[in-house]
C-alpha cells in the first residue's frame, strides 16, 4: 500500500478544506448559531417562567357570575394571557394571529350550563375560535376551559342562584311525575342539596335570606375540582439535574452539518474528476482503493474537527455536559463522521454534475435530519413517522448523542447507535465501491 500517497492525499484534502476559511467558519459557526436558537426556543434555559404565554381572547356575551368566574380563573392561569374582547374583534385577532384562540360564552351560558349539569339536556355551546396553525395550543385551552368550567359550574349548581333555581325546578318536575325508586332517590339527593345550601347560607351569613346564594368567599370552598395535583419531575441524567435543551439541538445540528460536510466532500470529488488534476491522480501509481481510503479518511478527519468545535461551543458556552459515557459519545461521533465520509463518496459516484448532486443531496440530507429528529425531537411526530425515523441513521445518531449527553446513559446504550451508523457507513461504502469509475 502506498501510504505516502495516502498521507499526501489526506493532507491535501485537509489543506483544501482550510483554504476556504470562510467556508470553515460558516461550517462551524452556523450549526452553533442554529443549535443555540433551537435550544433556546425549546426551553433550553430550563426556566418555565421564560416560556411564552398562550394569548387567548374571552368573549363574554353572558355576563353571568359563572362566565365571569371562569374568565377570572383562565386569566389567573400561568399558561394563558387573557384578553376580554367583543366577538368581532376577537375573531379578527384570531384571524390575524394576535390571539391563538377565542372562547365565546353565549348569552344564557351560566343558567343553561348549571341546569344541564343535572339534566344533561339543553347544553349551551361554547364556541372556540382557533388559529389552525396553533392546534396544540387549542388543545391546552380546551383542557383548561373544561377544568375551570366544571369547577365554576359545579359551584354554581350547588351554591349559586342558578343552581338553586335548577334544583327547585327539577324537584317540582319530579313531584309531577309518577314515582319510581330511581326518581325517589334523585328527589332525596336534590332535597339534600337544597338543605345543604340553606345550611351554607346560614353559616356564612346568618342575616342573609334563604335562597339568596352564598357569599363569594364561602362559595370558593365548594364545587368540584380536580381531586389531585401533579408534580412533574424531569428524568435526566442525575437527580436534580435540570434538562438542558441545548444538548438535543447541538446533537441535531452536529449531525446535519457533518452530513453537509460529506456532501461538500462528494461534490469536491465530482469537481476533481472534471479537472486536469484527475488525470494527474490517475497517472500516478495509486490504486482505486488507496484513493478511496484517502478520501474517506480525510473527510472523516474534517468531520471530527467540525464536531469537536461544535461540541466545544456546546460544552463551554451552553453548558451541555456528557452526563453518560464519554466512550459512547466518542464512538457515536466517530461512526457519524465515518458515515459522513462514505456518504460523500457514494454521492460522488452516483452524481453526474456537481450542481445537481449538491441540490439533490441537500434535499435528501434535510429530509434525513428532519425525520431523524435533528430539528425537533422525534416524539412530536405522528406515530407512523416516528416508526419510519427508526430506520434512518440520522435518528440513531441523534439518539446516540442525546443518550451520551443529557440522558446520561452508559456505554452499552451507545453500542446499537454506533453499530447502525457503522453499518450505514459500510452500505454507503459498498455502493461507492460498486459505482466508482476509476478507469476512463
Amino acid at each position, binding site marked *: 500500500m502506498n501510504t*505516502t500517497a495516502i*498521507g499526501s*492525499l489526506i493532507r491535501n484534502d485537509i489543506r483544501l478544506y482550510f483554504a476556504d476559511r470562510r467556508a470553515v467558519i460558516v461550517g462551524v459557526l452556523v450549526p452553533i448559531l442554529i443549535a443555540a436558537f433551537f435550544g433556546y426556543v425549546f426551553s433550553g434555559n430550563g426556566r418555565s417562567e421564560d416560556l411564552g404565554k398562550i394569548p387567548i381572547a374571552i368573549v363574554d356575551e353572558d355576563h353571568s357570575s359563572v362566565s365571569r368566574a371562569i374568565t377570572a380563573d383562565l386569566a389567573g392561569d400561568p399558561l394563558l394571557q387573557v384578553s376580554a374582547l367583543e366577538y368581532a374583534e376577537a375573531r379578527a385577532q384570531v384571524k390575524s394571529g394576535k390571539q391563538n384562540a377565542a372562547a365565546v360564552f353565549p348569552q344564557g351560558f351560566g343558567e343553561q350550563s348549571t341546569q344541564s349539569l343535572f339534566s344533561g339536556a339543553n347544553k349551551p355551546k361554547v364556541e372556540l375560535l382557533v388559529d389552525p396553525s396553533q392546534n396544540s395550543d387549542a388543545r391546552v385551552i380546551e383542557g383548561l376551559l373544561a377544568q375551570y368550567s366544571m369547577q365554576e359550574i359545579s359551584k354554581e349548581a350547588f351554591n349559586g342562584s342558578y343552581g338553586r333555581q335548577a334544583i327547585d325546578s327539577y324537584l317540582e318536575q319530579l313531584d309531577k311525575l309518577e314515582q319510581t325508586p330511581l326518581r325517589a332517590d334523585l328527589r332525596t339527593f336534590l332535597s339534600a342539596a337544597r338543605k345543604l345550601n340553606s345550611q351554607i347560607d346560614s353559616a356564612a351569613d346568618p342575616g342573609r335570606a334563604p335562597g339568596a346564594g352564598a357569599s363569594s368567599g364561602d362559595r370558593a370552598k365548594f364545587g368540584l375540582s380536580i381531586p389531585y395535583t401533579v408534580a412533574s419531575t424531569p428524568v435526566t441524567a442525575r437527580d436534580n439535574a435540570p434538562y438542558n435543551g441545548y444538548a438535543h439541538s447541538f446533537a441535531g445540528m452536529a449531525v446535519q452539518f457533518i452530513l453537509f460536510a460529506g456532501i461538500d466532500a462528494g461534490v469536491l470529488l465530482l469537481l476533481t474528476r472534471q479537472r486536469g*488534476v484527475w*488525470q*494527474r491522480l490517475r497517472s500516478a501509481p495509486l490504486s482505486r482503493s488507496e484513493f478511496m481510503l484517502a478520501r474517506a479518511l480525510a473527510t472523516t478527519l474534517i468531520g471530527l474537527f467540525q464536531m469537536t468545535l461544535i461540541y466545544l461551543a456546546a460544552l463551554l458556552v451552553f453548558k451541555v455536559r456528557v452526563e453518560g459515557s464519554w466512550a459512547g459519545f466518542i464512538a457515536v461521533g466517530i461512526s457519524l463522521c465515518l458515515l459522513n465520509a462514505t456518504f460523500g463518496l457514494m454521492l460522488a459516484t452516483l452524481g453526474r454534475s456537481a450542481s445537481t448532486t449538491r441540490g439533490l443531496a441537500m434535499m435528501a440530507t434535510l429530509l434525513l435530519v428532519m425525520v431523524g429528529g435533528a430539528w425537533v425531537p422525534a416524539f412530536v411526530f405522528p406515530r407512523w413517522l416516528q416508526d419510519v425515523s427508526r430506520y434512518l441513521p440520522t435518528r440513531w445518531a441523534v439518539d446516540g448523542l442525546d443518550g451520551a449527553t443529557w440522558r446520561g446513559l452508559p456505554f452499552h446504550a451507545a453500542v446499537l447507535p454506533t453499530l447502525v451508523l457503522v453499518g450505514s457507513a459500510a452500505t454507503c461504502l459498498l455502493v461507492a465501491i460498486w459505482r466508482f469509475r476509476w*478507469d476512463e
Partner: protein
Amino acid sequence: MLRVDRLSKRYGERMAVNAISFSIEQGETVGLLGPNGAGKTTAIAMISGISKPDGGEVTLGGLSLARSANAFKRRVGLVPQDLALYEELSAWANLQLFGGLYGLAAAELRRRAEAALALVGLADRSADRVKTFSGGMKRRLNIAGALLHEPDLILLDEPTVGVDPQSRNAIFDNLEELKRRGKTLLYTTHYMEEAERLCDRVLILDHGRILADDKVAHLKQQYVNLETAFMQLTGRALRDGAES
C-alpha cells in the same frame, strides 16, 4: 525505450485510436501531431495509464503497463492539457501532493520540489496561491508537477496552449533543458513551429492512425516544411469534432 504496439481504443462506433505502433528511444523528443479529434489525447491517456486500451500493449524499458502498472507509472510523468493544479493552494502545496503520490516525502520531496520550481522559474512564488498566477506561470507549474519523481519519459499534452509568446518561449527553454538532461519527451501540439524547434522526430496522426513517422529534417526535406507535410497528409477539411 518506449514501445507502443497496436494500441487501440474505441468510443462507441468511433475508433479513436486504431492499432497504432511506434517506439521512442532514450533521450529522444517526439512530436505527436494531428488535427482536432485525431486521437492524440486518447493515445497519451492510454500511454500514461489513465485510460485502458481496448487492444495493444505499451512497454517502457521492458516494463509492461498492463502487467506492472505502478512500476511503469513511476517512470512516466504526465503534463495534462488541462491544468492539473489546485488553484486554491500554493505552488508548494501542489508539488507536495504530486510528489507524495510517487512516494516522495520529507527532505527528498523538499529538494526535488525546490529543483522543479527553480527549473520553471517559480522558486520565488512557491508560497503563493496558484490562482494568483498568470496563465504562463500555471503552465510552467503544470510541467514542474510532472518532474518531481524524475521520470524517464515525460508526456506533454499541448503544454503551451493558451499562453503568450513570452511564456511559450520560457516553456521551450524548460523543455530544452529537460532534453539536455537526457529525458525522453512525447509532445502533442498543434503548432508546427514548436515541433520544428523541439522535436527530433514527429508522428502525424489522423482518424486514429499514424500517417507519418519520420525525422523532422527528413519531412522538411520531403515537404518543404512541417506545415505543408501536415496539411498534405491530413487534408484541408475542417475538424470540428471534440479532441480525443
